[in-house]
């Protein structure tokens, strides 16, 4: 099976403006959403307690709310259905630090009389832990970005690296705009998803860049737009295929992974789509706009090769004892 004609060059950059506008709008709508609506951060970040309770039969949510309200620890607790009508989660910002009787035991006492239930999960995070996690998460993210920047600059050129970073930020911001819009819990798994999207996005982008570099080196054409169009067209079928396979597995995670995985599977699902889009329509386009010149790059490459040759010549002479 083949999806794309092997010799056809699609004019991706020709429609650059349309995609630019689309990306631009999405990006700023996402930023506005994140700024105004924000995330519903999980207890990993804010501290607090999540109790997952499964009832025999349909969970009496109203009764549970009523019972909880009376307790100081659950003043502003949120009670919601989780996965099935039998199961609920109770979320509260409070946590306890004593070991002999903790908030899970308290919940069990409060819920006595609301029905036949089993407490399946108690996650409690103290306020300090959350702070530390936020700092660590942000450090990891920034470090990864700089590592990628360094790596792409080393292997390609700084303009490529800059474009790649912009594309990554574009992907992540838009993805998390969706997370904010759909009020998906932002927890520690979401950070993993964020870093995965980052990895996926850079991976896709590198595959396209590799082609561009190859075409710059091999083709006689000096028109960078043409070269990029050709490179993107050549990698088109690979990008689509891989995106599809990754999309398949992320979709199964989203469908079968359950509510507990939602903080991971949802951003992944959106991220794969946005990441694929950006590696085709955004990353390469941005390199063009940074003013990359094929002529100068080739000159530099030629210079590099010349320098290398000279060095080797000198070394050879040195070894023969001429100098």
């Amino acid at each position, binding site marked *: 099976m083949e999806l794309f004609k092997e010799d056809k060059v699609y004019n991706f950059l020709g429609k650059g403006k349309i995609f630019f506008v689309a990306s631009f709008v999405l990006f700023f709508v996402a930023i506005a959403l994140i700024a105004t609506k924000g995330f519903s951060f999980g207890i990993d970040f804010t501290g607090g307690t999540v109790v997952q309770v499964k009832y025999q039969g349909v969970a009496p949510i109203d009764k549970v709310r009523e019972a909880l309200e009376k307790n100081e620890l659950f003043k502003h607790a949120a009670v919601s259905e989780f996965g099935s009508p039998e199961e609920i989660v109770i979320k509260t910002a409070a946590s306890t630090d004593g070991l002999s009787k903790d908030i899970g035991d308290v919940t069990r006492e409060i819920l006595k009389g609301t029905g036949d239930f089993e407490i399946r999960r108690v996650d409690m995070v*103290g306020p300090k832990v959350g702070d530390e996690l936020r700092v660590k998460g942000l450090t990891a993210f920034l*470090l990864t970005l700089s590592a*990628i920047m360094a790596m792409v600059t080393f292997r390609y050129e700084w303009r490529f690296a800059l474009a790649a970073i912009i594309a990554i930020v574009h992907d992540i911001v838009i993805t998390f705009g969706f997370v904010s819009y759909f009020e998906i819990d932002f927890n520690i798994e979401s950070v*993993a998803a964020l870093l995965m999207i980052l990895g996926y996005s*850079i991976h896709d982008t590198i*595959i396209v860049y590799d082609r561009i570099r190859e075409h710059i080196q091999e083709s006689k054409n000096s028109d960078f737009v043409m070269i990029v169009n050709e490179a993107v067209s050549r990698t088109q079928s690979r990008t689509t295929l891989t995106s599809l*396979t990754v999309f398949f597995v992320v979709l*199964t995670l989203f469908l079968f992974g359950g509510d507990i995985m939602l903080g991971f599977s949802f951003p992944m699902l959106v991220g794969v789509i946005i990441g694929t889009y950006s590696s085709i329509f955004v990353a390469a386009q941005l390199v063009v706009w940074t003013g990359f010149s094929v002529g100068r790059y080739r000159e530099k490459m030629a210079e590099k090769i010349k320098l290398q040759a000279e060095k080797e010549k000198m070394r050879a002479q040195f070894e023969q004892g001429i100098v």
Partner: protein
Amino acid sequence: MRLPESTRMKLNFRVVLLIAAALFGIIFSIPSLTQSQHGAKVTLGLDLQGGLHLLLGVKTEEAVNSQLKSVASGIKHFTEQNDILVDGLSVQGDGVVFSLLDAEDGTKLGEHLKNVQGAVVKVSGESYRVSFKPEEVEKLKAQAVDQAIETIRNRLDQFGLAEPVVARQGVDKILVELPGIKTPQEEQRARELISRAAKLELMAVDEDRSMRVNDLSDVEAASYGDKILEDALQPNMKHLVNEIPILDGTVLTDAQVGYDQNNRPVINFSLNSAGAQIFGDFTGKSVGKRLAIVLDGKVYSAPVINERIGGGSGQISGNYSVSEANDLAIALRSGALLAPIYMLEKRSVGPSLGADSIKASLLALVSGFVLVMIFMIMYYGLAGIIANLAVMINIFIILAMMALLGATLTLPGMAGIVLHIGLAVDANIIINERVREQIRLGLGLKKALQEGYSKAMRAILDSNITQIIACTILYVYGTGAIKGFAVTLSMGILASMLTAIVGTYGIFQLFTNRIEKSKNYKLWFGMTRKVN
């Protein structure tokens, strides 16, 4: 029978490597898959098998405080032994203060104080202040954490749970993982066992003022060098005892559950020789007075001393159930916690939820895998099957490596494997696309494979190195769950370099002659268009 040269398959090192990798993967993942007792296997994380995860903090400043108290006890004992009269001996702020009644005893006392480790002694006139050097404070704090880890580990080992994990996290945090916990009752019992201070103190009752105990405030009591303690069994009863204990739990050598004359469980403890000596001296000169047995700040009994008690043993009686007495004996045996601990984080997962999570992620794993396999075969024909084979071996290698490294498989780790399936075929997609291109250019198969692989290689390497860097950062900065994710993913990437790049090349080389002869590129590479 000899096959004609053109169809004969020659083994090459790449295929041998692939077979070796496959064998390695399969053999070492068998223990994990069958959950057998023998051999290294992947441990399931608490989120998958259920259990209790605790992150504990240590109030280290309390350890410094209690060390000060025992310095005070030491001074008290020494001065009494040597007939040195001191006044107002107490712990105030970060030091022990007292004043000497007879300045001539200064040199004698100085000898004793010199032996107190890490102490700074400030003398002004007759008043003394003994505190710790900053290094000593740091050392005591570090020791408190070490000791807490050791103590909790001892207690949990004796508690009889399967595979408890007690480990330091960061500088002063303790991670406790108990996979064996199944019910809330078990969980509560374990939490109590862990957090119990188990601080045993033998204290003298202040007989002179004991009658006034109900009228005294804490401040007044402190001015006499006393302390008001509650009774453990009768909540309304109070005891007035000397603030500085005669002995504490550090001199304990053993604690066992026994039964008293009414057949109620009690705890019999014995003291080491130094402790027994002090105990004997004290009881010898305190006949007729009472001795309070204090555990975690509560008085369990205060019997009258009838005679000098040698031998160094005693008994704690309370209204214990057998299991309570048992837990208490364990706590006493494994020693007191130098500093109180508190809970920073707790995650408890019931076994049924863990089982549900395994089911859900296995479903995702299998269905994702099947979808990808079908898709690859449809698109690439036999090349797709070869890629699928590589992915399968890859997953076995991940499992085997995790088993051998003793890594833990968590829910995010499972997600990492599922995701990896999607990414692992990517290497083969890149390769197959490149090979197809070269074939279309009219290159011979051998040359096409060579060119295709070497061109694909460059992009794959660039990308994989970047991914490994990202994973390393994830591992360094991530916490438990994220670490697991980073581990599975980077192992997958490393394994895919072997299976997807080296291995599949080997298989194609094996069949080169056959493919060339058949010229059936549709069957082998799924190419629908004519080749020039």
